[in-house]
């Protein structure tokens, strides 16, 4: 297996009394696309949100175990520092109601970049990486909320890339988009995986199989199976995985 970026050991997550993730142990490989799949309520979004400490916003949330990002324990880390290294894109496109440029430069500005030229370069680079530059290069001053849903989502990807993260977390990024916009995002994910580690939660099993190198299958808070996409599809070890793949429950 390729050098892991995340080493996760005996991770348990609770919301109040609810045991949302149980004894999850796994290594997430670097610069690969790992798809997190499983039926609704299995804990896949929770798992994703452990990785950038987004769950900390929920008052009843607590966790035990260990999650290491390149050797550093993130469960003790300052979430603000951690999140600079881990970008996140959400289910529903959520650009700020500001201009396209301001959306992309928000992160860099927060982290202290003030030079206009530098900010302009970051804007172009990030938008190019998100395959949006050609569509918006003449209207960077337009409000981002005027873009189409698919464009908004790519803008959110550009915004996440603007702070040069190592990891990109995608939480069902295409579930609110039409098929054509979805396809564009999928192509984009494949391109981005050359430079970034991508962890994507998806409800769409076909999508997971199309774009991922590895698949994690969660079932009721348990990590049932984690392997290369090829092995999971050709030869699932657990009955629950093969049931899920055959669409017996979703």
């Amino acid at each position, binding site marked *: 297996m390729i050098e892991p970026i995340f080493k996760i050991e005996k991770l348990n997550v609770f919301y109040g009394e609810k045991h949302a993730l149980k004894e999850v142990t796994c290594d997430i490989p670097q610069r690969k696309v790992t798809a997190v799949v499983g039926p609704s309520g299995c804990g896949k979004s929770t798992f994703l949100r452990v990785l950038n400490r987004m769950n900390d916003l929920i008052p009843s949330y607590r966790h035990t175990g260990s999650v290491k990002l390149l050797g550093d324990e993130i469960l003790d880390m300052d979430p603000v520092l951690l*999140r600079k290294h881990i*970008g996140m894109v959400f289910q529903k496109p959520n650009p700020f109601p500001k201009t396209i440029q301001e959306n992309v430069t928000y992160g860099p500005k*927060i982290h202290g970049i003030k030079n206009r030229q530098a900010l302009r370069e970051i804007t172009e680079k990030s938008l190019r990486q998100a395959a949006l530059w050609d569509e918006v290069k003449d209207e960077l001053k337009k409000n981002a909320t005027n873009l189409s849903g698919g464009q908004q989502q790519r803008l959110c990807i550009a915004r996440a890339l603007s702070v040069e993260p190592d990891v990109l977390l995608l939480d069902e990024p295409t579930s609110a988009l039409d098929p054509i916009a979805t396809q564009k995002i999928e192509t984009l994910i494949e391109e981005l995986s050359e430079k970034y580690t991508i962890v994507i939660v998806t409800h769409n099993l076909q999508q997971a199989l199309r774009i991922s190198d590895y698949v994690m299958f969660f079932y009721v808070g348990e990590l049932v199976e984690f392997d290369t996409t090829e092995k999971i599809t050709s030869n699932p070890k657990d009955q629950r995985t093969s049931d899920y793949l055959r669409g017996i429950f979703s």
Partner: protein
Amino acid sequence: MSRKRIDLFSRVLVTVAALLTMVILFGIFFFLISDGVKVFGKISLKDFFLSTRWYPTYEDAEFGILALLSGTLAVTGLTLLISIPLGFISAIFLAEFSSRKTHDFLKYVFELTAGIPSVVLGSFGLKYISRWLMELFPMKVWTGLNILNASLMLSVLAMPYFVTLIEDALKAVPVDQKEASLALGANMTSTLFRVLIPQARSGILNAIILGTNRIVGETMVVLMIAGGATMIPQSIFDPVRPLTAAIAGEMGEVELASTHYFALFMIGVVLLMISLIFTVTAMRLKRGMRR
């Protein structure tokens, strides 16, 4: 009753209620204005608005409201200066930085505060604040009943409005906006100032309008503790007689259909206008913001 009939019935009910409200509102406007303008048969517009001499019961009675108006503006201004920053900070704390328990407790406290009758606040100012002010600033204060006293008590009244409404405005910003900012490595303070407050600004403005209208119209507190002197204030320790205090204090003893009587109605119109101008300006600003 069939479904269609219920539908029709509720539509009629709603329309009648709406019409009734409008009729009442315009009725009040009409009677207030029609009585108020009669004052200009006796007093010139200039004397009414630009003279500071309000001596309605003298033999040569004078009806200049400039001093009263300045009293209203002074008390309102100082109250806003005290209560908006406090209310704003409390709202931010409640919306983003308090634990569930503290939040619920403080919210309860503010709700209780909002329920204090203004006459009770007035009594408190009359008995305690006035004495404390005299003791704290013995060189400056010549009466404990003054602008500062009234503004402090009015702030107690207005704060819960500002807190509740500003908190609502902040909470109305979609959670995904906050998450987007935090996920980029922004801390809570940057998120607040760069994302939440800008997006809540029209709600915040709304809170300020409602609160200010409440302060301008508040009568009992200023009647009891603003001092009642008809003078243009030079400092926050001067006593004043705001417009509402003049109406409330004098309406009971005024001779019906006298100049004084009409003058008091005209003051009512002026109050209405202040609130109207303020609301319309704020609405304009809000529309501008949305663009």
